[in-house]
């Protein structure tokens, strides 16, 4: 059976961190399971945690009047769910709902922020990795906005 720091190390976002840093992060983490249809995060609610998907899938959704839930993106094993825990005012911008029974590593955002304040090298490493993740998602969103399949050519 894998330990939490081993599980965390397998995720692209935490890859190549030093063992001591992985142990610090694992100290703010625990395994969780969630049933299909249940929410991990709700828009406007405090963003005090984030998640690493071990298996299953999570949909990021926006509720639109008259249209119901619009799925913006689905996230899959190895993906991180949530970065609002890292930035003031620490509130979720979207809903996150399990699409199928999912196994997650849940991280306590306040715990990890505290460790980053105390250990700036850890903070730098985490910020670099989350920034890279943000850039990937931003580029994907730009491509989505272009609606390239909606036009000829």
């Amino acid at each position, binding site marked *: 059976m894998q330990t939490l720091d081993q599980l965390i190390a397998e995720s692209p976002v935490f890859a190549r961190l030093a063992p001591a840093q992985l142990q610090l992060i694992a100290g703010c983490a625990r395994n969780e399971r969630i049933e299909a249809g249940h929410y991990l995060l709700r828009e406007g609610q405090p963003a005090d945690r984030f998640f690493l998907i071990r298996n299953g899938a999570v949909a990021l959704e926006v509720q639109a009047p008259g249209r*119901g839930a619009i*799925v*913006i*993106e689905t996230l899959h094993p190895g993906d991180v769910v949530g970065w609002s825990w890292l930035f003031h005012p620490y509130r979720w911008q979207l809903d996150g709902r399990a699409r199928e029974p999912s196994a997650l590593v849940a991280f306590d955002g306040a715990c990890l922020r505290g460790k980053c304040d105390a250990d700036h090298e850890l903070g730098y490493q985490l910020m670099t990795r989350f920034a890279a993740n943000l850039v990937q998602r931003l580029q994907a969103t730009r491509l*989505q906005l272009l609606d*390239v*399949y909606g036009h*000829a050519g």
Partner: protein
Amino acid sequence: MVMPVDVTAPGPMVPEPFVVMRRRRDTADTWTLELEPCSSDPLSFAPGQFTMLSAGGAGEVPISISGDPDDPARLVHTVRSVGLATQAICEAAPGRKLAVRGPFGEPWPVAEVEGADVVIAAGGIGLAPLRPAILWLLARRERFGRLVLLYGARTPDQILCADELASWSERGLEVHLTVDSAGPEWLGHVGVVTRLVRRARLTAGSTVAITCGPEVMMRFIVAALADCGVRSDRIYASMERNMQCGIGHCGHCQLGPSLVCRDGPVYRWSELEPWLAIPQL
């Protein structure tokens, strides 16, 4: 010495009549037509080639062949209705005659990449020109490593070949499908097709990629493949320009020093890169 010329043989500018045998609606604006020649032999073709297709009086357009290259008895075209010419083709009911010239163009290099892992990255109707390559590869499945389809569509109801994806998967194609947006009733992936590249866990050194879709999408796909270590000389793309003659005479489809109808539509990405870097080329 003057070579004798058979003046009775039709040249590449002379269309052959084909009759529509079957027409199927794929999505709200896309139709697949199966054609048979009225008098000529069936049209043999290589995966990735196209014909110039016309419904008579509405103009002629280049349309990729989407049928099985091992079964050319019927010429299959998947056409999106986006203008007068394509609208007239899509409206052609069984029994109606269409004019066909071709096939034209350089094909996908599928026969040259035996032993490789082949990634097929398609966006929207770009799956249609890739379908012959998929069928050709699956018919020779044992000659290749992994066969991976990365397919992105706008919404679930605009997925092409939806009824074939499961059987392709059973025959050894790893199918990764995503849509740009969907309601909660869609249980598949949501997100852009480039996000599938990392999930496919490719082995860069043994991977060859072929891609077709909107040019912007292909640029993003190439960037995502590069992030995974796949070199641009191992990536092939099917380009679209204003093709009119189909045989490199009129020059309308010029792309850099190349004519897409004659030298393409399939190009190695490393050849395309310098030309695509020039705005408005």
